[in-house]
């Protein structure tokens, strides 16, 4: 554990963004008003698959206040299809359905009117003529050759089917003492922010600039909009200073921005699209992974897990979206925190007639961790070995780092055993076990859930070239600019939107730490995309590493310049000087203050070293650590830094009512050096809440006729304050060798392990009854029915 005591880093410090939010002065997209704004509402078709034979918009167009009605056919003639990361050119996607409806709720027309209400009125007047087509909803069925293809031109429903074999899997299985197989299902759920997606697009025909303001979390947003609309990159200006009301991965907003961008250029008015909740749930960037895992593990009698085979079949929905890549990222932690020697992994992504799956917090890691942890629990049960002991036996040891896993990633640092020990101590594990026994004796079902999981952080996109050889992207960068102005105040610029992660606080803390000045004196701004250096958005739990890294490096450059100027003035060798709190000190006691440096740099060039540029500004564009290489032999270094979390949870429920209540929750969390403790703890608790939802409550459920049953918050149930308990957070720090301060990411913490832990607890509770719950969410009804059936068959 690092002894280094930082002045500002890791110290309790208020999050600067909070001030504007608690008074209701956030700047969300729906708050943006523009005179002359036109409003969009979408018309959805509710058939899961159908040809669009005719669209009669005449009655809608005739209504007062209606400006235009646009169909997919019009869009397809004017713009290119949206970018598709895989090599599947015949899976084409536009913001509106073109020729064919591919899922119930898909947007078919956009109505533009003087108000949102009038646009909705007009949408009802549009007459759609369709012919129903056969449809497929289940991913195993979509794999069959005779399943109706969602994209007939693509000729099958398979977007991706790639088999990886890392290490001598067959050999290891043959040599192992035992093997077992099972399947689990991660139901379709997502992180569902309370603010829906929204965008306002304005076309300035005089300056030839398309202004985009959006509630968005999307790398290369301006690039993708420009490409789709056939504009030059410098004709699109994305405004990063819009506050985003939660995203957790999902707000990609490409189809919305392309649609409104097109409309803005056609209608020469600012165009506003704020999804209502129905549009969002049915057809927005709302859905997440829906994955079936078939797993086999080979293990020895002493509990050593030798090898694993995993088949991951993912239901992408009607278009490619980001779904296939959410099968690729977990390759970077495919063995979890365990010393498993070989792995076979088959990643299959299929299209079905459901809404499109978008990127969700963790990008596929949470479902994969759920599968791996279930496997470990199953091995323990088979061997009748304690689940903790089995994990401790298989966990990578502290002295084994850096640790190379079979799929080519090296884990940077960690001390999993110590985190577990700390959690067991903090949770008073023997007492927890005793409480569990007490609850069981009182007639309840009770179980202790355990999950040990990794959070790969520092997101690059190495999974893209791994899954698509034609994609050669190896650059994944982030940047920061700093200027010390003529009055000596510091302004930093970051080139991204934020959705509650506290990036302004992160950056001012880092810069304050390096320059040894009060972070609250540093102002952090977000210029728009035309004024920005390259960045890739807060995805893949990357910003502590990347934004923190770029800010630190830019600050170091400034500090170096300050010392060089001081050295020149003090006529000393820079190496003999000491920088402290903004002032530079010579060995003989003379000093040169911050203000002195500013004066020289801004006003007295005759006092600067020869050849030095005036001013005090710097920037840094940083590449992701350990990134930069293409895959080789199906292996690649995925993300650079690995955070670790260990969950210990006590769950109990009445066997008839079947409603799981969480009686105790402890999480051990190691994300290296913490930049702001309250931000990290908040992320972790929030991640656990998302995990509780995924484990027990949330699902985008379709019925057999392809209708989405959970279109609103009446049926898509999210945890309230009653469903998330108080959580005991135990901290540990194994710094990363790859980052300036040893920081790792924590944007996905809690979510990556909570579903596994809760499933583990419920299964532990019923372990005496030969019941296995293998599908998330685990609903009360399913628990109660399973217990009742087991009791009946016992008689």
């Amino acid at each position, binding site marked *: 554990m690092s002894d280094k005591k930082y002045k500002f880093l890791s110290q309790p410090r208020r999050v600067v963004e909070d001030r504007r939010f608690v008074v209701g002065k956030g700047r969300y997209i729906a708050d943006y008003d523009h005179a002359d704004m036109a409003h969009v509402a979408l018309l959805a078709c509710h058939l899961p698959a159908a040809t669009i034979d005719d669209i009669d918009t005449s009655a809608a167009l005739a209504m007062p206040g209606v400006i235009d009605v646009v169909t997919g056919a019009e869009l397809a003639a004017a713009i290119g299809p949206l970018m598709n990361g895989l090599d599947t050119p015949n899976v084409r996607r536009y913001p509106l359905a073109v020729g064919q409806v591919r899922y119930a709720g898909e947007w078919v027309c956009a109505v533009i009117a003087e108000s949102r*209400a009038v646009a909705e009125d007009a949408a009802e007047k549009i007459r759609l003529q369709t012919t129903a087509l056969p449809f497929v909803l289940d991913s195993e069925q979509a794999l069959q050759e005779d399943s109706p293809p969602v994209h007939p031109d693509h000729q099958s429903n398979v977007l991706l089917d790639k088999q990886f074999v890392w290490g001598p899997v067959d050999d290891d299985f043959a040599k192992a003492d035992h093997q077992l197989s099972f399947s689990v299902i991660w139901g379709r759920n997502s992180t569902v922010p309370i603010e829906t997606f929204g965008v306002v697009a304005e076309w300035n025909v005089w300056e030839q600039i398309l202004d985009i303001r959006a509630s968005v979390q999307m790398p290369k947003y301006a690039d993708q909009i420009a490409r789709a609309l056939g504009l030059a990159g410098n004709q699109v200006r994305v405004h990063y200073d819009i506050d985003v009301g939660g995203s957790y991965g999902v707000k990609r907003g490409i189809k919305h921005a392309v649609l409104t961008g097109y409309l803005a250029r056609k209608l020469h008015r600012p165009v506003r699209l704020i999804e209502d909740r129905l549009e969002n749930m049915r057809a927005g960037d709302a859905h997440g992974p829906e994955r079936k895992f078939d797993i086999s593990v080979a293990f020895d009698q002493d509990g050593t897990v030798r090898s694993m085979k995993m088949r991951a079949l993912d239901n992408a929905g009607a278009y490619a979206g980001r779904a296939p890549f959410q099968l690729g990222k977990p390759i970077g932690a495919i063995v979890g925190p365990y010393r498993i020697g070989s792995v076979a992994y088959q990643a299959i992504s299929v299209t079905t007639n459901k809404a499109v799956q978008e990127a969700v917090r963790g990008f596929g890691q949470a479902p994969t961790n759920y599968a791996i942890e279930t496997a470990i629990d199953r091995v323990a049960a088979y061997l009748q070995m304690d689940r903790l002991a089995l994990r401790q036996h298989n966990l990578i040891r502290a002295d084994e780092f850096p640790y190379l896993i079979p799929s080519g990633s090296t884990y940077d640092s960690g001390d999993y055993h110590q985190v577990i020990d700390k959690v067991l101590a903090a949770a008073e594990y023997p007492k927890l076990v005793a409480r569990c026994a007490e609850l069981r004796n009182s007639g309840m079902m009770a179980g202790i859930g355990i999950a040990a999981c990794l959070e790969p952080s520092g997101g690059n996109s190495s999974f893209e070239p791994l899954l698509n050889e034609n994609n050669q992207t190896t650059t994944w960068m982030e940047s920061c600019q700093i200027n010390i102005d003529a009055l000596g105040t510091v302004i930093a610029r970051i080139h991204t939107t934020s959705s509650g992660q506290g990036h302004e606080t992160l950056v001012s803390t880092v810069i304050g730490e390096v320059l040894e000045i009060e972070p609250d004196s540093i102002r952090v701004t977000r210029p728009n995309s035309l004024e920005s250096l390259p960045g890739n958005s807060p995805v893949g739990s990357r910003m502590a590493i990347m934004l923190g890294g770029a800010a630190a490096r830019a600050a170091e450059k400034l500090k170096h310049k300050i010392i060089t100027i001081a050295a020149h003035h003090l006529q000393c060798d820079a190496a003999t000087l000491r920088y402290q709190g903004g002032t530079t000190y010579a060995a003989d006691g003379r000093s040169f203050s911050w203000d002195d440096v500013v004066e020289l740099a801004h006003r007295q060039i005759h006092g600067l070293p020869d050849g030095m540029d005036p001013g005090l500004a710097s920037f840094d564009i940083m590449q992701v650590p350990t990134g930069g290489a293409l895959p080789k032999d199906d292996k690649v270094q995925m993300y650079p830094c690995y955070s670790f979390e260990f969950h210990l949870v006590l769950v109990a429920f009445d066997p*008839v009512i079947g409603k799981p209540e969480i009686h105790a929750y402890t999480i051990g969390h190691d994300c290296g050096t913490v930049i702001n403790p309250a931000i990290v703890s908040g992320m972790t608790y929030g991640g656990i809440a998302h995990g509780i939802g995924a484990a027990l409550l949330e699902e985008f459920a379709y019925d057999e006729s392809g209708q989405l049953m959970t279109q609103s918050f009446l*049926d898509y*149930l999210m945890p*309230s304050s009653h469903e998330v308990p108080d959580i005991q957070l135990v901290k540990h720090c194994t710094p990363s060798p790859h980052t300036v301060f040893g920081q790792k990411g924590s944007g996905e913490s809690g979510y990556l392990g909570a579903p596994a832990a809760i499933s583990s607890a419920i299964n532990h509770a019923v372990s005496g009854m030969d019941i296995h719950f293998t599908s998330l969410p685990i609903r*009360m*009804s399913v628990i109660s*029915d399973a217990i*009742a059936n087991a009791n009946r068959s016992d008689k």
Partner: protein
Amino acid sequence: MKAAPFDYIRPDTLDDACACLASHPEARIIAGGQSLVPMLAMRLARPSLVIDIAHIDGLSAIRDDGDALVIGTMVRQAAALSDPLIATHLPLLAKALTHVGHPPTRSRGTVGGSLVHADPSAEIPLVAVALGASLRMRDSDGDIDFDAADFFIGPMLTLIPPTACLYEISFPKPKAAYVGTGFHEIAARRSDYALAAAGAHIEADAHGRVQDIRLAIGGVSDFPQRLPIDLPTDLVTDLATSKTSLAAAIDTALDTVDFVEDMHASASYRRRVVAELAGRAIGDALNEITADLA
């Protein structure tokens, strides 16, 4: 999710409200709006006119009529929850109200509104059915009364004539010496609409003999309903210890119920759980009486 257009009117009297209903066949009454407004937003309800009865005098009162407690249709759920008359004379309603929605919806939602909306999982209709409340409504021809037991005929479906306005609900007050009640519900999250709910109201005489037992269940079928059960004995103290025969009686009674199956719960779950909740509700009621007898 903007509602389809409608007109709005605030009549001063109940008769004015009825006159509006009579002349506008597509009109809807708005009371608290907690059930109606979401339906308007989703365009599932498309009235031409919304009639706001919140400001009509006399609809927000709770009065003791001797044999009955009469609750005005506009009495807010929050007001009912803290009302001493209801706490004293209708303890089952008081218990049920703690499960209705959340504090912000209880400040607006009304007792009458919940009854007319008739969600199969709603607590107030269940209590009205259990206690045999009388729903008094008026249309332009005069007053009409409905027995709660007959009023609910399907999910969101009642016998209310399209041009009638509910104005008060009469709940019979307990007659016997001792009263015990119990209310239990189960939902996926606390305060969600119930997947199963049971309310029990038992009256016993001074000797501890059951004079009246009223058990109703909700959330499990298309509407809340009374569950008539054959008690093995009428002595409260004996009943309190005969859980098994009570459970058997409940189980038999449940054979007549058509259980709903949906994505949140199976029919078998609803049956199993409502049986458990009914047992608990009766148990609570018996325990209250036993404690009073002691």
